């Protein structure tokens, strides 16, 4: 239906017949390379323009910062949203401060923000870049063309927030040669990784693992777009063959990769634990993180894949089985919007202009009175409310202190129970001493603390990385005391291996 409109600007190339030697076909490869080259221009531009910044910024390698910013955004792109602006700035700072360790952190942050803003190109209204290149038209005439592209784009996230995403152009600048089949490239990268790990060449292995992760992200992105299109229009996507095949393929792929990467993970963990050299140990640890991230992304992809079928059925019900009505009217999309999008700007603008002029309704014109004008002009501008309404001063009522024991009593009790690790004591002895120091109340508190220590909070101590822990054990001895009955507990302090626990925790995370 819309086909007549789409071809009116450019005649089909096949019908052009014999033409001068530098025709569009011969020129196409050149145009593609010119566009690829243009994508790197903003990075060179950063280094060229850093001299214009107020201050001494020529020591910074701006292209390096920019490339690592693109890296960071790509790696932090989640399935639904993108990377958080502040997070990217925070992660860029270590690299920048490594370039100039003696400069203040504020300056490093300024560099990070400057680079990121320039990659988004905040100054331009499109927030993108434009490069001009020339091609030969079908008739041999030379035409200059504008190539518009973005490196990092801002996308709306949930709750009105703004996230960053790298564009395909940026990923191509970064990784290069991405014009290949995603699946096979990934398999190749992972086989390479496994071989490298087996041979102990960890530096290369890390590079390969990172490449594998880029491809995983790209794969998710492709799928996300297909699902989004389905939500909007079931018939826009081929659900008879293409998508079911794609989903089945992707599920197989996820299962396969999951097995594969778990095997790699086991291998690298072994490599990490066995290797003696600290540099290799560190590399292997980083590699463990990367592979874990890959696995996480695969799991995410898989859950999306499983949702795809039900989503299609729900959308099918919603979109296709609505009861038809016999009345007719203007099909705003089919008759207006779709045909005008392929038109040249000048013509399309006339149609949208007509719609605007007749579709916006009316505005009652404002008539100005001299008296009002004076008032308006003399009124000081209202302060924009940045912080919202003023909070009323809360009316606080002092709650009566109804604690059973005072702070001093607790301090006394803790002092009594601060036992050396190699000398546990009987509860009876502690109670006697407590009575001498602070009377019956303190003895009661010590008894409570000792009973509490019979079930020590091991889990909390482990999570918080405590260095020691109070414990109490019942060895069957009866407690002989005027105030208390039960077992005469042995109370002691256990020393904990805080450093070891910390290491365990990071691995478990």
């Amino acid at each position, binding site marked *: *239906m*819309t086909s007549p409109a*789409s071809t009116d600007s*450019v005649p089909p*190339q096949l019908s052009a017949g014999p033409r001068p030697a530098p025709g569009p076909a011969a020129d*196409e490869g050149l145009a593609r390379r010119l566009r690829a080259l243009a994508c790197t221009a903003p990075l060179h531009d950063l280094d060229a323009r850093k001299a214009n910044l107020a201050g001494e910024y020529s020591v910074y390698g701006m292209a390096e910062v920019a490339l690592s910013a693109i890296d960071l955004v790509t790696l932090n792109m989640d399935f639904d949203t993108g990377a958080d602006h502040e997070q990217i700035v925070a992660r860029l700072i270590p690299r920048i401060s490594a370039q100039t360790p003696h400069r203040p952190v504020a300056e490093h942050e300024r560099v990070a923000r400057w680079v990121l803003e320039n990659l*988004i190109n905040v100054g331009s*209204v*499109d927030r993108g870049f434009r490069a001009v290149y020339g091609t030969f038209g079908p008739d041999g005439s030379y*035409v*200059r*063309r*504008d190539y*518009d592209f973005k490196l990092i784009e801002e996308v*709306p996230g949930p709750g009105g927030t703004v996230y960053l995403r790298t564009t395909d152009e940026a990923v191509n600048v970064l990784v290069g040669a991405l014009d290949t089949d995603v699946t096979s490239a990934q398999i190749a990268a992972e086989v390479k990784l496994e071989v490298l790990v087996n041979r102990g060449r960890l530096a290369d292995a890390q590079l390969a693992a990172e490449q594998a992760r880029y491809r995983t992200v790209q794969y998710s992105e492709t799928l996300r777009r297909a699902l989004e299109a389905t*939500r*909007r*229009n*079931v*018939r*826009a*996507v081929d659900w008879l063959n293409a998508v079911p095949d794609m989903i089945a393929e992707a599920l197989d792929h996820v299962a396969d990769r999951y097995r594969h990467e778990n095997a790699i993970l086991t291998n690298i963990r072994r490599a990490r634990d066995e290797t003696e050299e600290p540099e290799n140990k560190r590399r292997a640890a980083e590699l463990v993180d990367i592979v874990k991230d890959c696995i996480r992304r695969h799991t995410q992809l898989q859950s999306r894949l499983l949702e795809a079928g039900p*989503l299609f059925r*729900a*959308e099918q019900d*919603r*979109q*296709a089985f609505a009861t038809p*009505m*016999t*009345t007719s*009217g*203007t*099909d*705003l999309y*089919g*008759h*207006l*919007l*779709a045909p*005008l*999008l*392929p038109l*040249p700007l*000048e*013509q399309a*603008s*006339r*149609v*949208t*202009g007509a*719609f*605007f*002029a*007749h*579709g*916006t*309704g*009316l505005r009652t*014109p404002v008539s100005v009175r001299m008296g009002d004008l004076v008032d308006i002009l003399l009124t000081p501008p209202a302060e924009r409310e940045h912080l919202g309404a003023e909070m009323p001063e809360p009316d606080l009522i002092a709650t009566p202190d109804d604690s059973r024991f005072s702070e001093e009593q607790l301090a006394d009790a803790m002092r009594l129970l601060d036992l050396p690790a190699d000398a546990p004591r009987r509860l009876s002895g502690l109670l006697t001493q407590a009575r001498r120091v602070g009377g019956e109340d303190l003895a009661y508190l010590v008894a409570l603390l000792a009973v509490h220590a019979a079930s020590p909070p091991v889990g909390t101590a482990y999570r918080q990385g405590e260095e020691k822990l109070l414990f109490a054990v019942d060895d069957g001895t009866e407690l002989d005391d005027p105030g208390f009955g039960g077992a005469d507990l042995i109370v002691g302090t256990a020393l904990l291996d805080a450093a070891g626990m910390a290491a365990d925790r990071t691995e478990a995370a």
Partner: protein
Amino acid sequence: MSEYVEAEAAVASASAAVTPADAADAARLVAFGLQPKLQPARDQEYTELLRRYREDPPFARLADAVAAGLGLVVLEVSPRAGMAVTAAEDSVFAVRMGDYARRTAADGGDRFLHGLAHLAVAALAFPRPEDLADDGYVGRITVNGVDAFVRQACRRLEERAEEAGENTDPATEAPGLEAAWRIWARRSATGATKDARRLAGSTTGIIGKAVAFLTDSGFLQRTGDDQGGTYRTTARYQLQVRDMAGSAAMAELLELGVVPVTDGTASLLPAADTEDLDLVADAGLPFHS
């Protein structure tokens, strides 16, 4: 027509001549119509005047005449839409693009984007011809939903151009010849600003401006903040789009020589062998999440 009017007028003058009080009432009804956000059901005097318009033909003609004299077009007078009037072309009440958004005066691309935003809002609010024809239909849109659906349409055009091996990059000297979809596609969807407001030049900013304006015109009602803001349509908007905007834009399109093929109803269904751009029923309404 004029004979009819004269005959009617004769009957009217026979029964009761038009008094200044009647003229004041008629003008008052038109004045109510000029406050598009006013709900007829909420104002007793408005309801009373609407009833009189429907039951008293001479009064109705008087009100129509007042409206026409002011440069207004009466779309419908009913309890649900109230006195639905809109500005005639070149009337003092008409909205001009230059007043609506200042940048549009200098920048053809911006002028197009603002116009397209209004068209896209309407297209998503009334996705099927039936929806536009059905008086009881209430459309629902979200700002992000409108942007996503236009972008989707642009992406399909881009893919099609790529498949055909076309180079869609415009010639540098002739920006007016750039394909319209590229203007939308290359404008960023959103952007961070210093004060956490929407970036005015981004596409969601442009749509946000359009829906805010339409809300002020009494055409949309804001229902929530999800997805950049959710809105539902009013009876007035349906009338405006159906009777004014749709046909005006269509006339312009036909003048350009683009004839969208239509056989009344079937245009909505895409051809079986093409992945066309057609919107199927209810597509693009707020998504399930």
